[in-house]
Protein backbone atom coordinates (compact mmCIF):
# COMPACT_ATOMS: atom_id res chain seq x y z
CA UNK A 1 0.00 0.00 0.00
CA UNK A 2 1.39 3.41 -0.90
CA UNK A 3 2.06 5.57 2.13
CA UNK A 4 1.46 9.31 2.23
CA UNK A 5 4.56 11.00 0.92
CA UNK A 6 6.31 12.84 3.75
CA UNK A 7 6.21 16.60 3.58
CA UNK A 8 9.41 18.21 2.33
CA UNK A 9 10.85 21.22 4.09
CA UNK A 10 12.55 24.30 2.67
CA UNK A 11 15.92 25.79 3.61
CA UNK A 12 14.43 27.39 6.71
CA UNK A 13 12.85 24.13 7.73
CA UNK A 14 9.29 25.19 6.92
CA UNK A 15 6.89 22.72 5.46
CA UNK A 16 6.71 23.12 1.70
CA UNK A 17 3.19 23.51 0.39
CA UNK A 18 2.61 21.06 -2.39
CA UNK A 19 -0.38 19.16 -3.63
CA UNK A 20 -0.48 15.46 -2.82
CA UNK A 21 -0.13 14.60 -6.50
CA UNK A 22 2.85 16.89 -6.86
CA UNK A 23 4.49 15.14 -3.91
CA UNK A 24 3.93 11.70 -5.34
CA UNK A 25 5.22 12.61 -8.78
CA UNK A 26 8.22 14.34 -7.26
CA UNK A 27 9.00 11.26 -5.20
CA UNK A 28 8.70 9.03 -8.25
CA UNK A 29 11.21 11.18 -10.16
CA UNK A 30 13.53 11.79 -7.22
CA UNK A 31 12.84 15.50 -7.36
CA UNK A 32 13.41 17.53 -4.24
CA UNK A 33 10.43 19.78 -3.68
CA UNK A 34 12.71 22.55 -2.42
CA UNK A 35 14.06 22.89 -5.98
CA UNK A 36 10.65 23.30 -7.56
CA UNK A 37 8.98 26.66 -8.08
CA UNK A 38 5.39 26.56 -6.97
CA UNK A 39 2.85 28.27 -9.22
CA UNK A 40 -0.24 27.72 -7.08
CA UNK A 41 -1.69 30.09 -4.51
CA UNK A 42 0.96 31.09 -1.95
CA UNK A 43 3.57 29.31 -4.03
CA UNK A 44 1.92 25.95 -3.60
CA UNK A 45 3.60 23.38 -5.79
CA UNK A 46 1.18 21.64 -8.08
CA UNK A 47 1.61 18.74 -10.44
CA UNK A 48 2.33 20.98 -13.42
CA UNK A 49 5.29 22.54 -11.60
CA UNK A 50 6.91 19.20 -10.89
CA UNK A 51 6.31 17.99 -14.42
CA UNK A 52 7.80 21.15 -15.88
CA UNK A 53 10.77 20.74 -13.56
CA UNK A 54 11.27 17.15 -14.66
CA UNK A 55 11.00 18.10 -18.34
CA UNK A 56 13.57 20.85 -17.93
CA UNK A 57 15.90 18.49 -16.14
CA UNK A 58 15.60 15.95 -18.91
CA UNK A 59 15.99 18.55 -21.67
CA UNK A 60 19.05 20.22 -20.13
CA UNK A 61 20.73 17.87 -17.70
CA UNK A 62 23.87 20.03 -17.60
CA UNK A 63 21.95 22.90 -16.04
CA UNK A 64 21.19 20.91 -12.91
CA UNK A 65 23.84 20.66 -10.25
CA UNK A 66 23.87 16.89 -10.35
CA UNK A 67 27.08 14.93 -10.17
CA UNK A 68 28.55 13.97 -13.56
CA UNK A 69 27.28 10.59 -14.60
CA UNK A 70 30.07 8.09 -14.18
CA UNK A 71 30.73 6.05 -17.28
CA UNK A 72 30.32 2.41 -16.60
CA UNK A 73 32.85 0.12 -18.22
CA UNK A 74 31.19 -1.71 -21.10
Amino acid at each position, binding site marked *: *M*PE*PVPAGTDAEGRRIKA*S*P*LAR*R*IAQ*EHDVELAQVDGSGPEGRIVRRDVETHVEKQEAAPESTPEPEPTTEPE
Partner: protein
Amino acid sequence: LAPMATDYDCVIVGSGPGGYETAIRATQLGMETAIVEKDKLGGVCLNVGCIPTKALLKSAEVMAETSHLDDFGLELDGSVSPDFPSVIERSRGAANQMNQGVRFLMQKNDIDVLRGHGRLTAPDTVEIEPSVNMDGEEVGEARTVTGEHIILATGARPNELPFLPIDGEKVMSSKEAMLQTEQPDSLVIVGAGAIGVEFGYFYHHMGTDVTIIEVQDRMVPAEDKDVSKELEKAYTKMGIEVMTGANVKGVDKDAEPLRVEVETGGSTEHIECDQVLSAVGVVGNVEDIGLETVGVETEGGDIVVDDYYRTNVDGVYAIGDVTGAPWLAHKASHEGILCIEKIAGHDVRPMDPNDIPACTYCQPQIASVGHTEEEAREAGYDVKVGTFPFKANGKAAALGHQEGFVKTIYDEKYGELLGCHIIGEDATELISEVVAARTLETTGLEIMESMHPHPTLSETVMEATREAYGQPINI
Protein backbone atom coordinates in the same frame (compact mmCIF):
# COMPACT_ATOMS: atom_id res chain seq x y z
CA LEU B 1 -2.43 58.75 -33.16
CA ALA B 2 -4.26 57.81 -29.96
CA PRO B 3 -6.82 55.02 -30.42
CA MET B 4 -10.38 56.16 -30.35
CA ALA B 5 -11.87 55.46 -26.95
CA THR B 6 -14.70 52.91 -26.84
CA ASP B 7 -17.97 53.41 -24.97
CA TYR B 8 -17.15 50.52 -22.67
CA ASP B 9 -14.17 48.46 -21.64
CA CYS B 10 -16.30 45.41 -22.00
CA VAL B 11 -19.55 44.63 -23.76
CA ILE B 12 -21.13 41.27 -23.10
CA VAL B 13 -23.82 39.88 -25.38
CA GLY B 14 -26.18 37.60 -23.45
CA SER B 15 -27.05 37.67 -19.75
CA GLY B 16 -27.16 33.95 -18.93
CA PRO B 17 -25.02 32.63 -16.08
CA GLY B 18 -22.02 33.06 -18.35
CA GLY B 19 -22.77 36.63 -19.28
CA TYR B 20 -24.09 38.14 -16.08
CA GLU B 21 -21.45 36.65 -13.76
CA THR B 22 -18.72 37.78 -16.13
CA ALA B 23 -20.18 41.29 -16.13
CA ILE B 24 -20.03 41.43 -12.36
CA ARG B 25 -16.46 40.19 -12.26
CA ALA B 26 -15.54 42.70 -14.98
CA THR B 27 -16.72 45.64 -12.90
CA GLN B 28 -14.86 44.27 -9.88
CA LEU B 29 -11.76 44.32 -12.05
CA GLY B 30 -12.39 47.98 -12.76
CA MET B 31 -13.95 47.76 -16.22
CA GLU B 32 -16.84 49.83 -17.49
CA THR B 33 -19.26 47.12 -18.53
CA ALA B 34 -22.47 46.78 -20.50
CA ILE B 35 -24.56 43.69 -21.04
CA VAL B 36 -26.86 43.22 -24.02
CA GLU B 37 -29.93 41.01 -23.58
CA LYS B 38 -32.77 40.44 -25.99
CA ASP B 39 -34.93 38.44 -23.62
CA LYS B 40 -35.06 38.12 -19.84
CA LEU B 41 -32.07 38.61 -17.60
CA GLY B 42 -30.51 35.34 -16.46
CA GLY B 43 -30.63 33.44 -19.73
CA VAL B 44 -31.87 29.90 -20.22
CA CYS B 45 -30.57 28.83 -16.85
CA LEU B 46 -32.67 31.10 -14.67
CA ASN B 47 -35.72 31.44 -16.86
CA VAL B 48 -36.25 28.18 -18.75
CA GLY B 49 -33.47 25.88 -17.58
CA CYS B 50 -31.76 24.93 -14.36
CA ILE B 51 -33.82 26.79 -11.78
CA PRO B 52 -37.42 26.28 -12.90
CA THR B 53 -36.83 22.59 -13.63
CA LYS B 54 -35.35 22.01 -10.18
CA ALA B 55 -38.42 23.69 -8.68
CA LEU B 56 -40.66 21.30 -10.64
CA LEU B 57 -38.58 18.36 -9.52
CA LYS B 58 -38.95 19.39 -5.89
CA SER B 59 -42.74 19.24 -6.22
CA ALA B 60 -42.37 15.82 -7.80
CA GLU B 61 -40.14 14.64 -4.97
CA VAL B 62 -42.55 15.77 -2.31
CA MET B 63 -45.31 14.06 -4.26
CA ALA B 64 -43.23 10.88 -4.40
CA GLU B 65 -42.58 11.00 -0.68
CA THR B 66 -46.22 11.57 0.22
CA SER B 67 -47.14 8.49 -1.80
CA HIS B 68 -45.68 6.28 0.95
CA LEU B 69 -46.09 8.32 4.14
CA ASP B 70 -46.68 5.16 6.16
CA ASP B 71 -43.05 4.20 5.56
CA PHE B 72 -42.15 7.21 7.71
CA GLY B 73 -44.66 6.27 10.39
CA LEU B 74 -47.09 8.95 9.25
CA GLU B 75 -50.77 8.44 8.63
CA LEU B 76 -52.53 9.96 5.66
CA ASP B 77 -56.24 10.21 6.16
CA GLY B 78 -57.41 11.25 2.69
CA SER B 79 -55.27 11.81 -0.37
CA VAL B 80 -52.62 14.05 -1.90
CA SER B 81 -52.66 15.05 -5.54
CA PRO B 82 -50.76 17.52 -7.65
CA ASP B 83 -52.51 20.70 -8.73
CA PHE B 84 -50.60 20.98 -11.98
CA PRO B 85 -51.09 24.70 -12.65
CA SER B 86 -49.95 25.49 -9.08
CA VAL B 87 -46.88 23.35 -9.54
CA ILE B 88 -46.01 25.33 -12.66
CA GLU B 89 -46.77 28.59 -10.91
CA ARG B 90 -44.43 27.72 -8.05
CA SER B 91 -41.69 27.00 -10.57
CA ARG B 92 -42.24 30.34 -12.24
CA GLY B 93 -42.01 31.97 -8.83
CA ALA B 94 -38.54 30.51 -8.26
CA ALA B 95 -37.45 31.61 -11.75
CA ASN B 96 -38.79 35.10 -11.22
CA GLN B 97 -37.12 35.45 -7.85
CA MET B 98 -33.76 34.62 -9.44
CA ASN B 99 -34.45 36.86 -12.40
CA GLN B 100 -35.18 39.78 -10.05
CA GLY B 101 -31.95 38.93 -8.30
CA VAL B 102 -29.95 39.40 -11.48
CA ARG B 103 -31.65 42.72 -12.13
CA PHE B 104 -30.64 43.83 -8.64
CA LEU B 105 -27.06 42.62 -9.17
CA MET B 106 -26.74 44.56 -12.42
CA GLN B 107 -27.84 47.73 -10.65
CA LYS B 108 -25.67 47.14 -7.61
CA ASN B 109 -22.61 46.60 -9.77
CA ASP B 110 -23.29 49.56 -12.07
CA ILE B 111 -23.61 47.45 -15.16
CA ASP B 112 -25.52 49.01 -18.03
CA VAL B 113 -28.22 46.66 -19.21
CA LEU B 114 -28.92 47.28 -22.89
CA ARG B 115 -32.12 45.56 -23.97
CA GLY B 116 -32.40 44.22 -27.47
CA HIS B 117 -30.80 41.91 -29.99
CA GLY B 118 -27.06 42.48 -30.29
CA ARG B 119 -24.97 41.91 -33.40
CA LEU B 120 -21.32 42.56 -34.15
CA THR B 121 -20.73 45.03 -36.97
CA ALA B 122 -17.03 45.41 -36.25
CA PRO B 123 -14.71 43.67 -33.76
CA ASP B 124 -15.38 46.44 -31.24
CA THR B 125 -18.94 47.36 -32.22
CA VAL B 126 -22.29 45.93 -31.29
CA GLU B 127 -25.42 47.09 -33.01
CA ILE B 128 -28.55 46.64 -30.96
CA GLU B 129 -32.12 46.46 -32.20
CA PRO B 130 -35.41 46.00 -30.34
CA SER B 131 -36.54 42.44 -29.75
CA VAL B 132 -39.50 40.51 -28.38
CA ASN B 133 -39.03 38.65 -25.11
CA MET B 134 -40.53 35.30 -24.04
CA ASP B 135 -43.60 37.04 -22.64
CA GLY B 136 -44.22 38.59 -26.05
CA GLU B 137 -43.23 42.09 -24.94
CA GLU B 138 -41.15 44.31 -27.19
CA VAL B 139 -38.01 45.43 -25.39
CA GLY B 140 -35.07 47.72 -26.12
CA GLU B 141 -34.33 50.41 -28.64
CA ALA B 142 -31.99 50.70 -31.56
CA ARG B 143 -28.48 51.88 -30.75
CA THR B 144 -24.86 51.03 -31.33
CA VAL B 145 -22.19 50.65 -28.68
CA THR B 146 -18.48 49.99 -28.81
CA GLY B 147 -16.31 48.05 -26.43
CA GLU B 148 -12.63 47.32 -26.19
CA HIS B 149 -13.52 43.71 -25.44
CA ILE B 150 -16.66 42.04 -26.70
CA ILE B 151 -17.70 38.79 -25.07
CA LEU B 152 -20.27 36.66 -26.84
CA ALA B 153 -22.36 34.68 -24.37
CA THR B 154 -25.41 34.05 -26.49
CA GLY B 155 -25.99 30.51 -25.25
CA ALA B 156 -27.88 27.76 -26.98
CA ARG B 157 -31.41 26.60 -27.74
CA PRO B 158 -33.08 23.19 -27.96
CA ASN B 159 -31.94 21.06 -30.85
CA GLU B 160 -34.54 19.88 -33.36
CA LEU B 161 -34.54 16.58 -35.23
CA PRO B 162 -35.50 16.96 -38.90
CA PHE B 163 -38.22 14.32 -38.61
CA LEU B 164 -39.47 15.67 -35.28
CA PRO B 165 -40.12 19.37 -35.74
CA ILE B 166 -41.06 21.22 -32.57
CA ASP B 167 -44.39 23.01 -32.75
CA GLY B 168 -44.61 23.85 -29.06
CA GLU B 169 -47.91 22.04 -28.58
CA LYS B 170 -47.97 18.50 -29.83
CA VAL B 171 -44.20 18.25 -30.01
CA MET B 172 -42.64 20.36 -27.31
CA SER B 173 -39.16 21.44 -26.32
CA SER B 174 -38.15 21.65 -22.66
CA LYS B 175 -39.41 25.21 -22.63
CA GLU B 176 -43.05 24.40 -23.31
CA ALA B 177 -42.81 21.31 -21.13
CA MET B 178 -42.03 23.52 -18.15
CA LEU B 179 -44.39 26.36 -19.00
CA GLN B 180 -47.60 24.66 -20.04
CA THR B 181 -50.33 24.60 -17.42
CA GLU B 182 -52.24 21.72 -18.92
CA GLN B 183 -50.96 18.28 -18.16
CA PRO B 184 -50.94 15.49 -20.75
CA ASP B 185 -52.30 12.08 -19.75
CA SER B 186 -49.45 10.48 -21.62
CA LEU B 187 -46.11 11.75 -22.79
CA VAL B 188 -43.35 10.35 -24.97
CA ILE B 189 -39.94 11.81 -24.25
CA VAL B 190 -37.37 11.51 -27.00
CA GLY B 191 -33.88 11.47 -25.50
CA ALA B 192 -32.70 10.06 -22.16
CA GLY B 193 -30.04 12.65 -21.39
CA ALA B 194 -30.25 14.84 -18.30
CA ILE B 195 -33.18 16.93 -19.53
CA GLY B 196 -35.17 13.94 -20.77
CA VAL B 197 -34.87 11.93 -17.58
CA GLU B 198 -35.58 14.96 -15.40
CA PHE B 199 -38.84 15.67 -17.20
CA GLY B 200 -39.61 11.96 -17.15
CA TYR B 201 -39.37 11.91 -13.37
CA PHE B 202 -41.40 15.09 -13.05
CA TYR B 203 -44.30 14.16 -15.30
CA HIS B 204 -44.43 10.63 -13.93
CA HIS B 205 -44.97 11.90 -10.40
CA MET B 206 -47.54 14.38 -11.64
CA GLY B 207 -49.51 11.37 -12.81
CA THR B 208 -48.70 11.35 -16.52
CA ASP B 209 -47.95 8.07 -18.31
CA VAL B 210 -44.35 8.49 -19.41
CA THR B 211 -42.32 6.65 -22.04
CA ILE B 212 -38.69 7.59 -22.58
CA ILE B 213 -37.05 6.65 -25.87
CA GLU B 214 -33.30 6.70 -26.32
CA VAL B 215 -31.44 5.85 -29.51
CA GLN B 216 -28.29 4.77 -27.73
CA ASP B 217 -28.19 1.50 -25.87
CA ARG B 218 -28.54 3.05 -22.43
CA MET B 219 -30.02 5.97 -20.51
CA VAL B 220 -27.77 8.96 -19.66
CA PRO B 221 -25.18 7.73 -22.17
CA ALA B 222 -22.65 10.36 -21.13
CA GLU B 223 -22.39 8.77 -17.69
CA ASP B 224 -20.55 5.67 -16.51
CA LYS B 225 -22.21 2.48 -17.76
CA ASP B 226 -22.99 1.20 -14.27
CA VAL B 227 -24.81 4.43 -13.55
CA SER B 228 -26.97 4.00 -16.63
CA LYS B 229 -27.84 0.49 -15.54
CA GLU B 230 -28.81 1.60 -12.04
CA LEU B 231 -30.94 4.45 -13.37
CA GLU B 232 -32.78 2.21 -15.78
CA LYS B 233 -33.53 -0.17 -12.92
CA ALA B 234 -34.89 2.66 -10.80
CA TYR B 235 -37.02 4.12 -13.60
CA THR B 236 -38.49 0.79 -14.56
CA LYS B 237 -39.34 0.10 -10.92
CA MET B 238 -40.95 3.52 -10.67
CA GLY B 239 -43.22 2.64 -13.55
CA ILE B 240 -41.67 4.72 -16.30
CA GLU B 241 -41.45 2.95 -19.64
CA VAL B 242 -37.88 3.06 -20.93
CA MET B 243 -36.87 2.08 -24.45
CA THR B 244 -33.18 2.13 -25.32
CA GLY B 245 -31.58 1.36 -28.64
CA ALA B 246 -34.78 2.69 -30.11
CA ASN B 247 -34.92 4.99 -33.06
CA VAL B 248 -37.76 7.49 -33.37
CA LYS B 249 -38.73 7.80 -37.02
CA GLY B 250 -41.42 10.41 -36.80
CA VAL B 251 -44.75 11.28 -35.30
CA ASP B 252 -48.17 11.27 -36.84
CA LYS B 253 -49.54 14.58 -35.62
CA ASP B 254 -52.90 14.17 -37.27
CA ALA B 255 -53.68 11.09 -35.29
CA GLU B 256 -55.50 11.54 -32.02
CA PRO B 257 -53.82 10.44 -29.79
CA LEU B 258 -50.50 11.12 -31.51
CA ARG B 259 -48.65 8.12 -32.90
CA VAL B 260 -44.89 7.98 -32.48
CA GLU B 261 -43.12 5.63 -34.84
CA VAL B 262 -40.19 3.83 -33.27
CA GLU B 263 -37.78 1.36 -34.78
CA THR B 264 -36.37 -1.01 -32.23
CA GLY B 265 -34.63 -4.33 -32.59
CA GLY B 266 -35.39 -4.44 -36.29
CA SER B 267 -39.15 -3.99 -35.94
CA THR B 268 -41.32 -0.91 -35.96
CA GLU B 269 -43.65 0.04 -33.12
CA HIS B 270 -46.21 2.76 -32.75
CA ILE B 271 -46.64 4.43 -29.39
CA GLU B 272 -49.73 6.49 -28.68
CA CYS B 273 -49.52 9.60 -26.53
CA ASP B 274 -50.99 13.06 -25.97
CA GLN B 275 -47.74 14.93 -26.32
CA VAL B 276 -44.11 14.45 -27.31
CA LEU B 277 -41.15 16.13 -25.64
CA SER B 278 -38.08 16.44 -27.83
CA ALA B 279 -35.02 16.46 -25.55
CA VAL B 280 -32.18 15.79 -27.94
CA GLY B 281 -29.52 18.30 -26.96
CA VAL B 282 -28.99 21.93 -27.84
CA VAL B 283 -27.43 24.01 -30.59
CA GLY B 284 -25.48 27.22 -30.14
CA ASN B 285 -26.98 30.63 -30.93
CA VAL B 286 -24.49 31.63 -33.60
CA GLU B 287 -26.94 33.06 -36.13
CA ASP B 288 -27.50 36.73 -36.76
CA ILE B 289 -24.88 37.93 -34.29
CA GLY B 290 -22.47 39.21 -36.91
CA LEU B 291 -19.95 36.40 -36.81
CA GLU B 292 -19.67 36.42 -40.59
CA THR B 293 -19.40 40.21 -40.72
CA VAL B 294 -16.31 40.29 -38.54
CA GLY B 295 -15.03 36.87 -39.54
CA VAL B 296 -15.36 34.92 -36.28
CA GLU B 297 -14.63 31.27 -36.83
CA THR B 298 -17.13 28.55 -35.96
CA GLU B 299 -16.91 24.79 -36.12
CA GLY B 300 -19.87 22.45 -36.11
CA GLY B 301 -22.08 25.31 -34.99
CA ASP B 302 -19.88 26.32 -32.04
CA ILE B 303 -17.69 29.40 -31.82
CA VAL B 304 -14.05 28.34 -31.78
CA VAL B 305 -12.01 29.68 -28.86
CA ASP B 306 -8.61 29.11 -27.28
CA ASP B 307 -7.83 28.26 -23.64
CA TYR B 308 -8.69 31.79 -22.62
CA TYR B 309 -11.85 32.08 -24.71
CA ARG B 310 -10.36 34.31 -27.39
CA THR B 311 -11.84 33.84 -30.84
CA ASN B 312 -9.73 34.24 -33.95
CA VAL B 313 -10.72 37.93 -34.07
CA ASP B 314 -8.80 40.24 -31.75
CA GLY B 315 -10.97 41.70 -29.02
CA VAL B 316 -13.79 39.23 -29.55
CA TYR B 317 -14.29 36.41 -27.03
CA ALA B 318 -16.91 33.72 -26.54
CA ILE B 319 -17.94 31.74 -23.46
CA GLY B 320 -20.61 29.32 -22.32
CA ASP B 321 -23.00 27.21 -24.33
CA VAL B 322 -22.21 29.01 -27.59
CA THR B 323 -18.71 27.50 -27.45
CA GLY B 324 -20.06 23.95 -27.34
CA ALA B 325 -20.43 20.96 -25.02
CA PRO B 326 -20.76 20.32 -22.17
CA TRP B 327 -23.72 22.69 -22.00
CA LEU B 328 -23.68 23.53 -18.32
CA ALA B 329 -24.30 26.69 -16.37
CA HIS B 330 -21.27 26.36 -14.10
CA LYS B 331 -19.04 25.81 -17.10
CA ALA B 332 -20.42 29.01 -18.63
CA SER B 333 -19.72 31.14 -15.58
CA HIS B 334 -16.36 29.55 -14.92
CA GLU B 335 -15.27 30.27 -18.48
CA GLY B 336 -16.52 33.82 -18.28
CA ILE B 337 -14.66 34.60 -15.08
CA LEU B 338 -11.51 33.00 -16.41
CA CYS B 339 -11.83 34.97 -19.65
CA ILE B 340 -12.28 38.32 -17.98
CA GLU B 341 -9.53 37.73 -15.42
CA LYS B 342 -7.16 36.87 -18.25
CA ILE B 343 -8.17 40.09 -20.00
CA ALA B 344 -7.40 41.94 -16.77
CA GLY B 345 -3.94 40.41 -16.82
CA HIS B 346 -4.36 37.90 -14.02
CA ASP B 347 -2.33 34.72 -13.97
CA VAL B 348 -5.15 32.24 -14.50
CA ARG B 349 -5.03 28.50 -14.96
CA PRO B 350 -6.86 27.10 -17.99
CA MET B 351 -9.77 24.88 -17.20
CA ASP B 352 -9.28 21.13 -17.19
CA PRO B 353 -12.34 19.58 -18.86
CA ASN B 354 -12.06 16.70 -16.42
CA ASP B 355 -12.80 19.09 -13.56
CA ILE B 356 -16.29 19.91 -14.85
CA PRO B 357 -18.97 18.12 -12.84
CA ALA B 358 -22.23 17.07 -14.46
CA CYS B 359 -25.47 16.59 -12.56
CA THR B 360 -28.89 15.13 -13.24
CA TYR B 361 -31.56 15.98 -10.73
CA CYS B 362 -33.95 13.09 -11.08
CA GLN B 363 -34.33 10.66 -8.18
CA PRO B 364 -31.99 8.88 -7.63
CA GLN B 365 -29.77 11.83 -8.54
CA ILE B 366 -26.71 11.46 -10.71
CA ALA B 367 -23.46 13.39 -10.45
CA SER B 368 -20.05 12.79 -11.85
CA VAL B 369 -16.70 14.33 -12.58
CA GLY B 370 -13.70 13.19 -14.58
CA HIS B 371 -13.30 9.98 -16.52
CA THR B 372 -15.75 7.11 -16.62
CA GLU B 373 -14.13 3.76 -15.94
CA GLU B 374 -14.18 2.98 -19.64
CA GLU B 375 -12.62 6.31 -20.59
CA ALA B 376 -9.91 5.97 -17.97
CA ARG B 377 -8.92 2.56 -19.26
CA GLU B 378 -9.05 3.76 -22.85
CA ALA B 379 -6.81 6.69 -21.91
CA GLY B 380 -4.26 4.09 -20.89
CA TYR B 381 -4.42 4.40 -17.15
CA ASP B 382 -3.91 1.47 -14.83
CA VAL B 383 -6.88 2.05 -12.60
CA LYS B 384 -8.07 0.97 -9.22
CA VAL B 385 -11.81 1.19 -8.92
CA GLY B 386 -13.82 1.20 -5.73
CA THR B 387 -17.58 1.25 -5.30
CA PHE B 388 -19.78 1.60 -2.28
CA PRO B 389 -23.56 1.11 -2.18
CA PHE B 390 -25.84 3.56 -0.38
CA LYS B 391 -27.46 0.44 1.09
CA ALA B 392 -24.52 0.19 3.50
CA ASN B 393 -24.63 3.86 4.54
CA GLY B 394 -26.19 4.81 7.85
CA LYS B 395 -27.73 8.09 6.83
CA ALA B 396 -29.22 6.55 3.71
CA ALA B 397 -30.88 3.97 5.97
CA ALA B 398 -32.20 6.72 8.24
CA LEU B 399 -33.55 8.66 5.26
CA GLY B 400 -35.00 5.58 3.60
CA HIS B 401 -33.15 6.27 0.35
CA GLN B 402 -30.84 3.34 -0.08
CA GLU B 403 -30.69 2.94 -3.84
CA GLY B 404 -27.53 3.67 -5.80
CA PHE B 405 -23.77 3.70 -5.29
CA VAL B 406 -20.58 5.69 -5.54
CA LYS B 407 -17.83 4.61 -7.87
CA THR B 408 -14.38 6.11 -7.57
CA ILE B 409 -11.59 5.63 -10.08
CA TYR B 410 -7.98 6.16 -9.11
CA ASP B 411 -4.78 5.97 -11.08
CA GLU B 412 -2.77 3.01 -9.83
CA LYS B 413 0.55 4.80 -10.15
CA TYR B 414 0.11 8.14 -8.42
CA GLY B 415 -3.29 7.75 -6.86
CA GLU B 416 -4.80 10.55 -8.93
CA LEU B 417 -8.56 10.79 -8.61
CA LEU B 418 -9.45 10.14 -12.24
CA GLY B 419 -13.19 10.08 -11.90
CA CYS B 420 -16.11 9.74 -9.56
CA HIS B 421 -19.63 8.64 -10.44
CA ILE B 422 -22.50 8.87 -8.02
CA ILE B 423 -26.06 7.74 -8.39
CA GLY B 424 -28.18 8.08 -5.28
CA GLU B 425 -29.67 10.44 -2.76
CA ASP B 426 -28.17 13.94 -2.87
CA ALA B 427 -25.50 12.98 -5.42
CA THR B 428 -25.50 16.51 -6.84
CA GLU B 429 -24.28 17.91 -3.53
CA LEU B 430 -21.85 15.08 -2.78
CA ILE B 431 -19.90 15.64 -5.97
CA SER B 432 -18.62 19.06 -4.86
CA GLU B 433 -16.24 17.51 -2.38
CA VAL B 434 -14.78 15.40 -5.15
CA VAL B 435 -14.44 18.35 -7.52
CA ALA B 436 -12.69 20.43 -4.88
CA ALA B 437 -10.40 17.55 -4.01
CA ARG B 438 -9.53 17.04 -7.69
CA THR B 439 -8.87 20.74 -8.08
CA LEU B 440 -6.53 20.46 -5.10
CA GLU B 441 -4.82 17.48 -6.75
CA THR B 442 -5.78 14.95 -4.15
CA THR B 443 -4.92 11.29 -4.13
CA GLY B 444 -7.14 8.68 -2.54
CA LEU B 445 -5.15 8.88 0.67
CA GLU B 446 -6.34 12.39 1.51
CA ILE B 447 -9.95 11.46 0.78
CA MET B 448 -9.60 8.63 3.27
CA GLU B 449 -7.83 10.87 5.76
CA SER B 450 -10.45 13.61 5.50
CA MET B 451 -12.93 13.23 8.33
CA HIS B 452 -16.35 12.78 6.83
CA PRO B 453 -18.95 13.54 9.46
CA HIS B 454 -21.09 10.66 10.61
CA PRO B 455 -23.80 9.97 9.70
CA THR B 456 -23.70 11.57 6.27
CA LEU B 457 -24.13 10.40 2.72
CA SER B 458 -20.70 11.89 2.01
CA GLU B 459 -19.14 8.96 3.82
CA THR B 460 -19.89 6.88 0.74
CA VAL B 461 -17.18 8.77 -1.17
CA MET B 462 -14.65 7.88 1.49
CA GLU B 463 -15.83 4.28 1.66
CA ALA B 464 -15.65 3.84 -2.11
CA THR B 465 -12.13 5.23 -2.00
CA ARG B 466 -11.21 2.81 0.76
CA GLU B 467 -12.48 0.01 -1.42
CA ALA B 468 -10.36 1.19 -4.34
CA TYR B 469 -7.35 1.07 -2.04
CA GLY B 470 -8.21 -2.40 -0.79
CA GLN B 471 -9.14 -1.19 2.70
CA PRO B 472 -12.91 -1.21 2.75
CA ILE B 473 -14.58 -0.78 6.13
CA ASN B 474 -18.35 -0.88 5.98
CA ILE B 475 -18.72 -3.38 3.20
